[in-house]
């Protein structure tokens, strides 16, 4: 049974969003990491880049599959999880599997439009979405 924390919001593309003022933290859900399998590589955007809603902002590679990541809200990238990046001394992409909602977070965005959050699902809606 996949974990679906109550305090987060969720996209149909299986990303979670944690809201803290006008900054949101984004990662992929426990369900998504389970479907992907062992994550071996993550590509993330540069800090400062502006992302439109639904824009591809990176990729996650697991076993033999490269999958695009999509911005669940629009905003400017203010931080990325360096631990997931290959050129980091503490390169640990498997944090996406072992701790998808904490150490496996991917990017932080400064929200462009708080109304974007209204398009996301709550925990109950996402639980229904994944069946």
């Amino acid at each position, binding site marked *: 049974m996949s974990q679906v924390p109550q305090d987060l919001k969720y996209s*149909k*593309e299986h990303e979670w969003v944690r809201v803290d003022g006008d900054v949101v933290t984004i990662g992929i859900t426990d369900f998504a990491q389970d*479907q*992907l*399998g*062992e994550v*071996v*590589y993550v*590509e993330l955007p540069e800090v400062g880049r502006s992302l439109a809603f639904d824009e*591809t902002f990176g*990729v996650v*590679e*697991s*076993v*033999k*599959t*490269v*999958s*695009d990541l*999509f911005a669940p809200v629009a905003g400017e990238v203010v931080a990325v999880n360096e631990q997931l990046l*290959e050129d980091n001394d503490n390169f640990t992409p498997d944090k996406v599997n072992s701790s998808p909602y904490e150490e496996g977070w991917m990017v932080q965005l400064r929200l462009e439009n708080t109304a974007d959050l209204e398009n996301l699902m709550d925990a109950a809606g996402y639980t229904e*979405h*994944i*069946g």
Partner: protein
Amino acid sequence: MFQDWKSFEEAISHQSWRVIMDEPKPGAWNMDADRFLLATVTRPVLRLYRWSSACLSLGRRQAQEVVELRQKLTGVCDVVVRPSGGGMLLHGLDWTYSVVLPGASRLSIGKAFQGITRWWANAFKALGAEVTIGEQGTRGQERQMMPCMERHTAGEILGPEGKLVGSAQARTKDVLLQHGSICHSRDNKLETQVFGGPLKTSALIDLGLGNCQASEFVAAFMTANSFSCYSIEDWREDELGKI
């Protein structure tokens, strides 16, 4: 949401596939053609192609090694980056396939990977080859350093000497592309130049399929999997202008 593989397989069996059988082309063109399909397809596509010269293809995460490898392998083979994941594959004496499926990007990765490789296993069996499906995968960081043909993922097609097909996937929001290299015969000298030694793989020539033509592989793939509706459609001029 992630779809159920069986339902998807049932649905796709009623769709009209496009089949593209390309003449041998350079590595960069072959990868651009796959990227074009990944970005544009609206119906299932099976593309079967060969390579006009020896070429090492790298998985997406190995892209940063491309400059160094091109220098190291100057005069030996080309080096290109695939849109998909996985390890290094040496092309030249292989058939390469691309199965491109719109509406499939939310299928479970493991089930889709195993399902598509099973389609190929069914085709090889229909042609009379004895192949099996591997159950055990190679795990951990060790796998990242190994050539694709020497590392295993559950569901891969094996012959008597080892892996016969090295496959990997790329996914966009809607489309799944799985391509794979089907080893026709081995080139121990080239493998030694590229990998430092010959690879332990199976090959079509050892399975009695060395003389099979593209059209025979395509017919076996479609018939063995009950994909009754397909048409062979070359690239259109407007598509070639965009590749």
